[in-house]
Every structure is written in C-alpha cells, then in structure tokens.
C-alpha cells in the first residue's frame, strides 16, 4: 500500500529524540535535516524572540542558559508542588513557575510556556524532518514514554503530539519498543529482559517472545534515575573542589553551571572509552573585583567516576531485580538481556548488569536508536493488517479505588495484560448512606492519598438501609488504548453510572483548545508569509526580465509614438512593482506580477513581429 500515509515512530527522550519509519518492511532511522540521527530535546528562545529547537538550541545553551529548556521530560505531566519538581528546580538553570492549577510552566522570554508546548516544539521538529526526508506530509505517529510514566504524564505527551500537529496513535512503553526492535526479524523465542537506562529514567521490562508476538510479562523502573544523575555527581565534585580551592560557589553562576554540565556529560561519555579524561574550562569564573579570571582544570579517572556513581549503579540493578521478582522470573530463565539507552555504554553499568544476572548482555542493538525503531514497528503493526508483529502490553501501574479508612483497594494489579476488566462488590460503610463517592486511584501504595487520583465520581440515590446492606458493583475496564472506564451499579435498584477516566496532563481542555487555535493562527500566518515570499521572488524575476527587454524594444520602436508610450508605461510598472515588493500586501504583489507578465508578453510579441520583418 504505497499510497497510505506514512506513520512515524518517535522516541521523545530526556536528552535526545529520534524519529524512525518502516519502509519496505524494515525499520530505519530518519536523519534530521542536518544529517544527524539524534536531535537534542532542547528548545530555546533567543533575546530576539526567535525559537530554536534541537542542535541549534543546544549550541547556544551556554550563552543563554535561562532561556534554554532541556530535560522537559522530567517535568512533563507533573505537579508543580511535587517533590520531583522541587528537586528539579534546584538543579535546572531555567525558571520553572507554577501554572494556574499546580501545573508546571517554564519561563521562556516573556512567556510562561506549558511543558506539552515545549515537547511539542521538539515533536514538530521531528515531524518536519520526517516530511523533508519522505517528501510528504506526516500527521500520525507512535510516541514512546518510560514504562513508569503515569496516566498524567502519558496524557501530557499525547497533548504535546496534538500541539505539534501529530495524531498520536499510541503511547508505547520505551522498553517494549526496544524489545520489538530487538526481536524483529529474529526467530527469538523465550523470555528477554530490557534494561533501559536513558538520560533521565530507568526502565526494566521482561517480555516473552514467540513467533512475532511480544508479551510483556512485567515492567517497572524509576522515573528519576538516569544519565543526568551521573553528570550531577561529576558536577558536585568539580564544584566542591573549586570551592575548596578558590572559595567560590559555582552553583550560583548560571553560565558556569551550564558549562560544567556540558563538560561533565562529555567527561562521562569519554570515560566509556578511556581510563582518564581531562576537564578544561578556561575563564570559568570572573571575580567581581576585576582580578583575572579563574580557570578550571581537572583530571577524572574512570575509577574515580565509578566511585562517585557506585550507589546509582547499584540502584539500577536493584530495581531490575525487583522487576524480575515481581514478575516471578528467575534470572536463569532469561534468554537475553538487552541494554538500551546511552547510559548503558558506561562500563560500570555493563559490569553491574553482567555480575548481577551472571551473563553477558546482548550487543548488536544501537542503544540510542532502538526505541524509535520499535515505535516505528508498532506504528506499522497497527496500520498494516498483514503485519507479523503483535504486542501484548500491560498496565504499568495498579488501578484501585479509595476505601474506608483512607486505604487503596487494588482492583487491577500492575502488569495485567490489556485490554482487561474486573468487577468488584462494594458495600455502604454508614447507616442510611445514600451517596457513594468512587475515587479512582493509580499507584502501588496501600494508602489512598499516596497514589495518583485519576478521577472521582458520585453514585447517588442509593436506597436507605443499614450499613453494609447496599451492594454496589463496580466495573473497571482498561481498553487496548490504555483508557480507563469505570461503571458502578447499585445491585438492588439497577441504578447505574459510568465515566471515562482520563488523567489530566496539566493542560485543561480549554487551554489545549486555545493553544491549538493559536497554533492554527500562527500556521496561517506562516503560510501567508511564505506565499508573500514566493510572489516577491516571482515579481523580482519578472521585473528583471521586462527590464532586460527594454533596450531592444527601444531600439526597434523608440521612434514611434506607441513605442515611447509603451516604454514609459513599462518603466512605471517596474518602478511601482519594485516598490510593492517592499510591502507585505499579497493582493498588491499578485496584481503587479500580473501587470509585469502582461508587459512582458506585449514586448515579446512586438519583438517577434518587428524582429521578423527586419
């Protein structure tokens, strides 16, 4: 089906993003317009108000730290008051402010921009890259998220897609995508574990694979453990040493901090290949007294780096172990361990995985690209009925309801294959209770308030009865899109009520609508300005052509009354047309292009007749 619209797969990463597509049955990465496979997930606004995305934004990050937003994935779909956001505010150089309903916004120039909008800028960039490479419009995508993202974070990512003009067919878990890409085309049969350590998150999944079916057995991880934590350990060490030596706290210097961050990341990457690396940051700090600037020079060995980050590495394998235990899978049963994410290039991480699972992790997948390839494969599987690939995914977190005493009663445990449903009986807890409030929770805590509240609804009009006498049947359903619906029924009266529960990604429906409308306006503007640009260049070349004809026309007809009049008119048209080219008026431009064209046709006709006679 060559005429079907292409559907892309996007790995929207904490530090880098990748876009891929399946063509001719094979998945491959689409390089961006500068020829790179990886696009930095960075969005910036310059002092002139220009928005930059990707490599361009990364390049100016050092000189413009306050208005350069990176690691947006750590904030998307979270609450401003949450611990994670509080921690992020301490370490990120750009300003994080609260939205109207405890959502997170980042200050970019004059505007407080929502996180879905920031991520949308990256997604749009990837969409444009794909369109440039494929030569056609792309409007559908599968986007990946860490397995441990909750509904709010998933919804926010979906919103980002909409703002970017992409219909997100499916939100896919990153480790699952990696497993798809790993297993694709191989005759893999058995259980495999995916260990995905990226820039900001750790995800571990166990899958059972046979004949193209990928059955997720268990998934888990930590949304706050990744490469940046490793970088931060290096930064902390450098800052401490600098403070000891020069008595200056570099953490207060935004520009210095940004340079340290870059240098730490580079050093970490180099230590994957080398045993030792130098960190050189000349003129890092200029004391206010006008004395000469201080440079930073340091040597970092791999051994020291391993020591600085040892506990982080330990935590990654502990989490992996926990996921296996929850899945009731013994490491011996695993056929393969697939390492995904740039951070798995770090030798200490590889060693820890090897030691812990007592086998060599499998090589042969590109850790940074495999997730996007998997997303493209799932996109293809959904669109092509003939596809060999089928993914049986699970709910990453338990779903439950709040019960008396402030507890959480789990109805669908995590790692249940979707679509699924479950029905449970509830009883009234007070005498004469006529209404019951059902609070739908997502999370693993036994205490209701420690879970994410997905939504709540009230079933009213229960009959008067002693407590425990009224039975309410509550049915939870999760469909294959991951959408939760809940219905409750009074068993006696048959009174029924149901809702579709969608977590909010931080933007209210109105806010999202406004953003999309603004988007449409600015897109219209962009289209108009590109048309103006086209007419302008048409006008310039038409004017040049007419001007070029004038000398010959003058030579042949200059003596006649008609000739002089026509030449004078032509010169007038050229002058006015060139004046109009300075303006933005599309109608005027179009008119002048027409007039120039008429003049040109007239002159060419005259030249043909007179020239032929001579």
């Amino acid at each position, binding site marked *: 089906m060559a005429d079907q619209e292409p559907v892309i797969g996007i790995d929207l990463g904490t530090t880098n993003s990748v876009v891929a597509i399946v063509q001719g049955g094979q998945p491959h990465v689409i390089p961006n317009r500068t020829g790179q496979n990886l696009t930095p997930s960075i969005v910036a606004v310059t002092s002139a108000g220009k928005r930059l995305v990707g490599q361009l934004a990364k390049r100016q990050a050092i000189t413009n730290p306050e208005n350069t937003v990176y690691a947006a994935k750590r904030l998307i779909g979270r609450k401003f008051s949450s611990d994670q956001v509080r921690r992020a505010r301490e370490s990120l150089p750009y300003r994080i402010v609260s939205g109207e309903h405890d959502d997170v916004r980042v200050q970019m120039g004059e505007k407080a921009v929502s996180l879905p909008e920031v991520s949308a800028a990256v997604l749009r960039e990837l969409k444009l890259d794909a369109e440039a490479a494929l030569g056609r419009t792309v409007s559908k995508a599968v986007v990946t998220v860490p397995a441990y993202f909750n509904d709010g974070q998933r*919804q926010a990512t979906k919103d980002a897609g909409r703002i970017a003009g992409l219909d997100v*067919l499916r939100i896919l878990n990153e480790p699952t995508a990696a497993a798809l890409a790993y297993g694709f085309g191989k005759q893999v049969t058995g259980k495999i574990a995916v260990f995905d350590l990226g820039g900001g998150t750790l995800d571990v999944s166990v899958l*059972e694979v*046979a*004949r193209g*079916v990928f*059955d997720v057995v268990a998934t888990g991880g930590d949304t706050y453990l990744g490469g940046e934590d490793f970088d931060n350990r290096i930064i902390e060490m450098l800052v401490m040493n600098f403070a000891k030596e020069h008595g200056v706290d570099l953490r207060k210097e935004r520009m210095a901090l940004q340079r340290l961050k870059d240098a730490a990341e580079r050093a970490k990457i180099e230590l994957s290949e080398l045993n030792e690396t130098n960190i050189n940051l000349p003129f890092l700090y200029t004391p206010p007294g006008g004395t000469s600037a201080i440079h930073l020079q340091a040597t970092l060995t791999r051994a020291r780096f391993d020591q600085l980050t040892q506990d982080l590495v330990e935590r990654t394998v502990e989490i992996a172990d926990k996921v296996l*235990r*929850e899945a*009731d899978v*013994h*490491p*011996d049963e695993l056929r393969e361990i697939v390492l995904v994410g740039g951070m798995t290039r770090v030798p200490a991480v590889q060693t820890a995985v090897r030691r812990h699972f*007592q*086998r060599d992790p499998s090589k042969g997948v590109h850790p940074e690209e495999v997730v996007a390839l998997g997303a493209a494969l799932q996109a293809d*599987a*959904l*669109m092509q*009925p003939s596809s060999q690939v*089928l*993914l*049986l995914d699970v709910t990453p977190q338990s779903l*439950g309801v709040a*019960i008396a005493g402030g*507890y*959480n*009663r*789990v*109805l669908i*445990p995590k790692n249940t*294959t979707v*679509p*699924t*449903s*479950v029905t*449970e009986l509830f009883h009234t807890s007070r005498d004469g209770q006529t209404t019951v409030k059902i609070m739908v929770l997502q999370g*693993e805590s*036994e205490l209701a308030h420690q879970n994410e*509240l*997905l*939504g*709540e*609804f009230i079933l009213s009009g229960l009959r008067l009865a002693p407590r425990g006498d009224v039975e309410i049947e509550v049915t939870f*359903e999760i*469909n*294959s899109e991951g959408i939760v*619906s809940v*219905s409750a029924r009074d068993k006696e009266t048959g009174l*029924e*009520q*149901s*809702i*579709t*529960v*969608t*977590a*909010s990604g931080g933007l*209210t*429906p109105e806010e999202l609508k406004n953003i999309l409308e603004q988007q449409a306006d600015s897109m219209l503007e962009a289209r108009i300005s590109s048309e103006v640009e086209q007419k302008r260049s048409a006008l310039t070349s038409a004017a040049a052509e007419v001007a070029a004809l004038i000398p010959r026309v003058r030579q042949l007809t200059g003596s006649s009354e008609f000739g002089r009049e026509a030449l004078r008119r032509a010169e007038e048209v050229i002058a006015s047309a060139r004046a109009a080219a300075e303006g933005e008026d599309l109608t005027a431009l179009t008119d002048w292009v027409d007039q120039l064209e008429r003049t040109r046709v007239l002159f060419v006709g005259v030249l043909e007749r007179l020239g032929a006679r001579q």
Partner: protein
Amino acid sequence: MGLSSSGGAKLLPSGTHDPLSEAVDLDLDRKREILARESQLARDDWTVLGLKPGATAEAVKLAYFEASRIFHPDRYYGKNLGSYRARLERIFHRLSEAHEALTEALRRAPPPRTTSPSRQATPGPGGNPPGADARAEERRARLARHPYLSSKARAGALVEEAQRQARSAPEKALHLLDQARALGGGQQKGRAPAVEAEAKQQMASKRSEDEMQSGNAAVREGDAAAAAHAYSRASELDPHRPDAAYEAARWALKAGDRPLAEARVLAQRAVSLRPDHLPSQLVLAEICIRMGMGSVARRHLEAALKLDPRNAEAKALLRQVR
C-alpha cells in the same frame, strides 16, 4: 483532573439483532470466528484456548499467542468494529486469564525432569554437551604444554579446581575464580560464570540456613518481627527454599510491621515453590484478602480446598471473599 461523564453509552445491540448482519469492517468468516469463540468463553481454560487438557506449557503459550493474533483488538486498529469491539475485548481478556491460570498451574506441577535440581539451578551457558568435556580436557592438556599459553592453562586448572570446591567450600571456590580471572583465562569464559554461580548459590544457601536458625530462635523468644526479618533474609539469600519463603510470609503477616506487598511476594514465592503445601496457599490468600485482592485470594483458596476439601480455615476465608 479531567473527568467527564460519558452517560453510560451501551455498545451492545439488543438481543434480537443478528450480529452477522451488522455493518462493520470485518468479513463474514471473521465474524463467525469471533462469535464462535465468544460462545466458548464460559467453558474451561483449555477449551477457551482451543486445547485439549494436558497440553504442555509451551503449547499453552503458542495457543494463546496464535489466538491473540486473531482476537486482540489491535489487529483491527482504526476499523469500525461496532459491537465486535466489545466482543474482541471480552474474548482477549478471557484468553489472557486462561493463559495465566494454566501457565501458573503447569508451573506448580511441572513435568518430571531428567536432571537433578542442583544442576538445574546453574545458568545455561556453562552446560556442555556430553562428550565435549573429554575433548575439551584433551585440548586443555595440549595447550598447557605450550609455553605461551601456560597462563591460560593455569587459569583453566584453577577454574576446574574451583568447580570441585564449589559445593563443599564455596568461599574457596570464589577465591580461585578470582585468581583465574587475574590470569585472563580466555578460553574459560564459558565455564567460569557457571561455577561462580554455583559457588554463590552454595554460599547463599549456607547463609540462608544460618538465617533460618536465627528465625527459629526469634520464634522461640516470641519476637514475630525479628522472625519475619530473619526468614525473609533467608528467602532472599536462597529464593528456591520453600520453607524460608513460607515462614517469612507467615511471620510478616503476624508481625504486621511491614508492607503487605512484601509479604505477598514472599507468599507468592512459597506457593510457586510448593504448590501442594496448603498452609502456603492459606497465607497467600489471607494476605490477598487484606490487600483487597479478593479475586486472587479466591483463586488460592480454591486451590487450597482442592488439596483438602474439608479445611475449615480455607472455608472460613472463602466466605469472607464471597
């Protein structure tokens, strides 16, 4: 929180309507297939998967996967399915349920094994095909005579010695392996991890035994929390030890000072290690009840009653979840 009431829209058509004539993006054969499978959903797990009772775990898995290819709603993404969407979701849900139940049942009562359990516990890569050992032996002897390769041969000898010691003196074995590694025993890569695993396993089970003893001591002193702690350490050290898992779960439940989820993991482990041990089933069921997982508890209580249909405790608990 975005919350909207969908007003309880009913997708199912009225009973008099013929589903075969419903205008959806499915051909007649597929409709028949879906309706036929749907009519089987109330039957036993084997039938639901299209299998005969007694099939192997492998066959269960493949039947589930093959059926998923037909009945998983993703296979019809973007299509107009009408009432068939709900049917597919129901069928697939039942398929996963049957697959899970049968897989767990077969795991509890696996087919007889030919190899001894202690060999089974070591990871696969170390296992050599029969006859290969003799040939490898000969090659190693030849290599040992070569001066350039003597360090590798020595490493090989160390690994062999470690293998002999792994069961009786695991600490010594691990030490020998370290030495072998320092020599760079290249050709031993395949075998060393298996030996190391066995030595570690041995060491873990020794330490596990110690923890069991201190757990027993704590029980005698009447300290439930300390007992739970010691037993769960024992189970962590040797996850294949059924009594450790069972005692750990039981005392964690009694002590009540730690998250129930932890106790559940232990109880689950106890049950999978020893499916015919009735007290394990009961502890797991009780934990599940306390965690509000009625349906899971029910499943385990039913399993318990299969083991002893007259068990009063199981009956009493079952009444709680009904």
